């Protein structure tokens, strides 16, 4: 059970795909014009990520090393197709809002990154929860970004007007430059919080060291790696 919670914390906080690993920036910047779009994109990715992690982990002994990337893509693409058909059937408005970014989940580097660096080398249960953790981290990040952009750029939250009528929306925040501003600001806040915690002598091992690289593929003794995290098992192929 320890492994499960460790994976969840790892995905949501320590190696948050958006704010720490800076992966999957294309959907992060493109679809977060509103909170609901960010949440929708995040949850869609979570579903695909979790299921593909599970299947890849189950098939990790079967998939030959040399053709692993095409094999991953086939698995991921199957799930993306299923999810898209479901969205078209039950949430057509979200589907049209997210547009081309749903099919593009196939090449989302969080999903390929987790398949390559975690699921391919680890048993199904931890891989499943790794997918959930990473997916939730991504969803939380996207929803936060979407909320801030919607609030400043349109004066609304989840489509409901929250700012007073006299508030003039700062349009730039729902346009492309605003995405960069908000992502940069939130990443900076995250780093400050981590530094403050480290300064107070709290257990920062849970929160990474802010070096930006992935702890799983790092041999440095920075102390942020858990004792039960065996590098040999976790990291054979490495991220190439």
């Amino acid at each position, binding site marked *: 059970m320890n492994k499960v919670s460790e994976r969840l914390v790892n995905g949501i906080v320590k190696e948050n795909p958006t704010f720490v690993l800076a992966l999957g920036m294309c959907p992060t910047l493109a679809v977060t014009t509103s909170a609901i779009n960010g949440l929708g994109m995040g949850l869609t990715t979570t579903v695909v990520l979790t299921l593909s992690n599970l299947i890849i982990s189950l098939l990790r002994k079967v998939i030959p090393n040399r053709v692993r990337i095409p094999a991953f893509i086939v698995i991921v693409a199957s799930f993306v197709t299923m999810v898209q058909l479901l969205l078209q059937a039950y949430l057509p408005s979200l589907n049209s809002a997210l547009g081309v970014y749903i099919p593009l989940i196939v090449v989302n580097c969080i999903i390929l990154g987790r398949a390559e660096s975690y699921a391919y080398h680890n048993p199904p249960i931890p891989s499943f929860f790794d997918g959930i953790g990473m997916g939730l981290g991504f969803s939380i990040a996207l929803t936060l970004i979407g909320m801030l952009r919607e609030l400043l750029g349109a004066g609304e939250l989840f489509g409901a007007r929250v700012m007073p009528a006299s508030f*003039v929306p700062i349009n730039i925040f729902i346009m492309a430059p605003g995405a960069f501003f908000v992502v940069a600001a939130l990443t900076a806040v995250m780093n400050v919080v981590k530094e403050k915690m480290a300064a107070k002598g709290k257990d920062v091992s849970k929160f990474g060291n802010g070096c930006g690289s992935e702890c799983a593929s790092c041999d440095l003794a920075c102390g942020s790696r858990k004792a039960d995290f065996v590098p040999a098992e976790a990291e054979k192929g490495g991220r190439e």
Partner: protein
Amino acid sequence: MSEQVYHVSSNPHIRSKVTTSSIMLLVLIALLPATGFGLWNFGFRALAVVLVCIGSAVATESIFCIIVKKKQTVKDLSAVVTGLLLALNLPVTIPLWMAALGSIFAILVVKLLFGGLGQNFMNPALGGRCFMLISFPTAMTAFSTDAYTGATPLAVMKNGGSVNVMDMIIGRTSGTIGETSVIAIVIGACILLICGVIDLKIPASYILSFACFVLLFGGHGFDPAFLAAHLAGGGLMLGAFFMATDYVTSPITPMGKIVFGIFLGIMTGIFRIFGPGSEGVSYAIIIGNLLVPLIEKVTVPTPFGFTKKKTAKGGKQA
């Protein structure tokens, strides 16, 4: 005991009296005619906009320096210049909180977050203005005041109307606070040129290449009135003399300055004549700013005593 005490110090032994703050002070003095004309033209509210912009720019820089525990840099007056330039680029009807927000953005995001004066890759005042143009398109193009109602001369021309060039040169038109009077801007520019603060290369190549572009592609043939109106209208003069020449964001090589000016002229022409809007100086200059490192790289002059390398692998030739 007539032993002489020698002070041994490392070079440089001759120091110039020119400092950042003395240059910025000269720029402020040079901007006074344009500011004064703006105040006379648009009335008391223009003063409020100018004061809010300068005040929030200075306050932002000062508070930022305190928060990040850096040496206080307000005294170099660059924040005052940025605030004033931004104010001169705003319409007089702009809500004051928008002016303050633009000013804070210019100083905080465009200048300080990239390392402060000397490290910013883009002219802060223009960055702030473009932020506001994108954010508040309606308020930024509302040029109706008590003194003048209706569109700016360039917008009138865009829609096929005719304008009075003499009024544009004196400045009795609608527009942003500081851009209307060509005479006032040129007086300020002369102060800067005489004091050696700016070099004529950038403004001259900018204005000339823009004039050529308008003559070639303006669709009016060789029409002096049309050309004069384009040269006197909008932010061209203010931009060419005060913003394109910003030390930090313009090339330092002589050849680079000319290339930079020509690029700005062509971009401004494209934006004004083929673009949907009637103005293009701000966007042309900030796009030009982004190309400055590249321009400097390809225009490094040959030092005295060296000959130009024939090939890339020519090596050092004495």
